[in-house]
Structure formats: C-alpha cells, structure tokens
C-alpha cells in the first residue's frame, strides 16, 4: 500500500499527527528528493515527495485520465454508423484503447494515495477538468479521422516526453499509452486519405472536419500559453510560465506548452500537404530563420469565452459520463456481492 509523506516522516522519527517534523529530518528528505531529480532518477510511490509535487501529479494525471475517457465520446458516437465493417472494427479498437488509457492512468494516480472513485466523483461534479477539446461535437464521419489524426497526434507530441516524466508509475503508464497511440494517429490519417482520394463530396467533408478540429487541437491539447510565442499577452504568458517552470523543475513536464505546440504545427503542415488538405490558418508559413513554421496567433480570450464549461456539448459529455456511471452501478454492486458471498474463497476487501 502507498505510504503517505506523513507516514514516512513519522517512520523516520518525525512528529506524528501533522506536526512539523524536525527541520533536520525534513531537510534530509527534501535533499534526497532533489538528488533523485538531479540524477534523472524516477520518484517512486514510496519515496518521500513534497506535497506540491504530489498535488500537481494528482491534478495532471486525473485530468489526463478524465480526458481519455471523455475522449471516447465524440468518436464512440460514430461506432454504429461506420461506413464498413473494417472501419468499424478499427474504431472500436481505438475507442477501447482510450478506455484502457484511462484505466492505466487512474491506476497510476492511485499510487499517489487517492482513490479512483473520488477522482470520478470530482469529474462528475465538475471539480476536475478534462481537455476542453472534447467539448466540440463530432458532426460527420470525417470528424473521427480528423480527431484521431489531429488530437491524438497532438497527444502523442505531449505524451512522448512524458514517458520520461519524473514520477515512475506515470512514466510507465505513458510508455504503454504511447505504444498504442501511434495506431490511433495512423488509422485517422488513413481514414482522411481515403476520403481525400474519394468523391469531391468526401474530400469536402474531410476539409470541413479539419477546419473545425485544427484550432481545438493546436490551442487546447497543449494547455494554456506559457511563453510569448503562443500569441498570448504578457500577463497570461507569465501566469502559464510560472506553472510550467515549476512542473519542469520537478521533472513532471520537460517542455513548455508552446514548444510542444510549435512541434505539432511543424509535424502537421507536411502531413496536411500529403493529404491535399489546407490547415485553416493563413498565418502558416515556413520561417527559414527559425527553422520552424510560423502560425497565426491564437485569440485565447475569445476562444476561452466561446468554450465556456456550460456549452451544450460540454453538458452533454458530462451528463453522458454520469449516466454511464449510474447505469453501471448494478454491475459494481453485483460484483461486490459476488465477491462477498459466503462461500467465496476470500473476502472482498
């Protein structure tokens, strides 16, 4: 079972019941933690860690887990309307992977001393967030391709560095996720390519999906701007920079949001060209001097306003999640009753 920081301090001879440990002990624990980070070693569940580190991890891993399971919805809605048995099998496997990714992450979060039931509860109450990207509706079949190519593509760019994040269980979960995510992006690109090589109406549907999913992917999958490069005003950038700097100092993140956003744009421009589609940003052009593609500044203010948490789709996403959870209560109750039956080989808990 997971030791809390308090328990370890206590075991190390520190004060019980929440009193501050003697300075010397606290300093030794902190020094050990810092030394692990400096050496590029992972922090493991039973290691002492600062409360802020634990809180930041719980928030990030929970947000990530919630995004995986809420992210099943836009594509899941198209499962019964896939145009062929092959596409249906592929999409089913993809959506099933997202459920699996959520479960890997909830298990990783639980090593930090939280319970997945509480995390789900916080999601259902709107106290914890998920990627607002998924508060956009998936209007056509092409959206399933655009989502996989663009938002899963953005996720891969975010998650590849997280395979080396400083918290061991999170890094290991990310390795499993990344191995599977490559399939998601490929099948989405493949789907888009089939549409682009189809009838003019199919090509048009593909372009329309990219027009609607580009901004959610580039703006929302990477988090708020944390440098001036993201097109934010100085105050917003400074705010984001402070959070990112702490996350980077703790080895949780390894790059700023805006660095990863730039990497994403650099990857997507040639991919869109390969499909014969246009990314809906007239500001995209190669910058010889920087060695990167320039892209138009994101209007964060108006974008945030347009994406308020109480948008129709956002309400639908959470309501669907809550309904699924409540409809599944009898399964959990039956499983618990079965495990607790008299002739059970072992007790349930």
């Amino acid at each position, binding site marked *: 079972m997971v030791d809390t920081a308090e328990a*370890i301090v206590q075991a190390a001879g520190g004060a019980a019941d929440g009193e501050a440990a003697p300075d010397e002990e606290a300093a030794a624990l902190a020094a050990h933690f810092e030394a692990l980070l400096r050496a590029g070693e992972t922090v493991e569940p039973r290691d002492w860690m600062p409360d802020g580190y634990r809180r930041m991890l719980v928030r990030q891993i929970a947000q990530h887990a919630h995004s995986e399971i809420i992210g099943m919805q836009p594509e899941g809605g198209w499962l019964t309307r896939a145009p062929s048995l092959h596409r249906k099998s592929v999409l089913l496997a993809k959506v099933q992977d997202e459920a699996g990714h959520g479960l890997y992450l909830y298990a990783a979060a639980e090593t930090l001393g939280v319970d997945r*039931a509480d995390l789900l509860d916080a999601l259902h109450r709107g106290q914890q967030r998920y990627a607002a990207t998924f508060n956009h509706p998936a209007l056509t079949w092409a959206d399933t391709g655009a989502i996989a190519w663009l938002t899963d593509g953005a996720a891969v760019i975010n998650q590849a560095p997280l395979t080396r994040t400083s918290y061991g269980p999170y890094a290991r979960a990310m390795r499993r996720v990344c191995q*599977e995510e490559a399939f998601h992006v490929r099948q989405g690109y493949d789907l888009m390519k089939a549409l682009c090589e189809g009838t003019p109406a199919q090509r048009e549907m593909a372009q329309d999906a990219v027009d609607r999913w580009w901004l959610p992917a580039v703006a929302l999958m990477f988090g708020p701007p944390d440098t001036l490069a993201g097109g934010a005003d100085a105050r917003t950038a400074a705010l984001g920079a402070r959070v990112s700097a702490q996350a980077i100092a703790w080895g949780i993140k390894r790059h700023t949001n805006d660095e990863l956003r730039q990497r994403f744009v650099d990857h997507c421009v040639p991919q869109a060209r390969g499909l014969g589609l246009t990314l809906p940003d007239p500001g995209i052009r190669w910058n010889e001097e920087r060695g990167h593609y320039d892209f138009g500044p994101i209007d964060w203010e108006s974008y945030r306003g347009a994406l308020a948490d109480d948008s129709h789709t956002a309400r639908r996403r959470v309501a669907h999640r809550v309904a699924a959870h409540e409809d599944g209560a009898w399964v959990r109750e039956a499983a*618990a009753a079965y*495990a607790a039956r008299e002739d059970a080989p072992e007790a349930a808990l």
Partner: protein
Amino acid sequence: MSRETEGVTASWEVFLRPRRGLSHQHVGSVRAGDADMALEHARDLYTRRGEPLSLWVVRSADVHAASPTERDPFFSNAHHKPYRYPEHFTPLTGGGDHDDDD
C-alpha cells in the same frame, strides 16, 4: 451513493509474461472483487495486443515491501564489498574472462 453501494473493490497488482524467455513483469493494477474478475479485467486491460503467455494477479494488500526509510540498513549486505565484482581483480592476460560463448 455511499462507498458500499458503489461496490468499491480491492486493488490487484498485475504481472504479465509477454513472451517466451521472459519472466512475469509488473505492468500495473486493476480493481476487482475477486481473483477471477481481476484476471478478466487484467486480460481486457493489459493484453489487447501481442501474444501473451501468462498472467498473474496478486492482491495489492498482500504485497509486503521493504520500507524505503530502512533501505540502507536493510540492503547493507551489498555495501563495501567491491571484491564481489570481477573488475576488482587483475584482468586475465589477453583479455576476456573465458565467458565468451563462441
């Protein structure tokens, strides 16, 4: 809904033997009411690809671990014994340690 009616179930650690020649490796955990359900959940979650050979589940509460705070005294048997490594000694003339398999 209370915890009891929620049916919050025990945590199980999952060990997978991904292919012949490898030992079982810890891959993560699942929640389940009993061992059979834990095996089924672990199969659904951790073996969606590849040709796994074998799967173990162990109740998380049954894992007994050495305390990290007692690491140094507990593992002291390895300390200060450089003579347990071949590099501690004079190399054999001509290199190699008779352990090349050719």
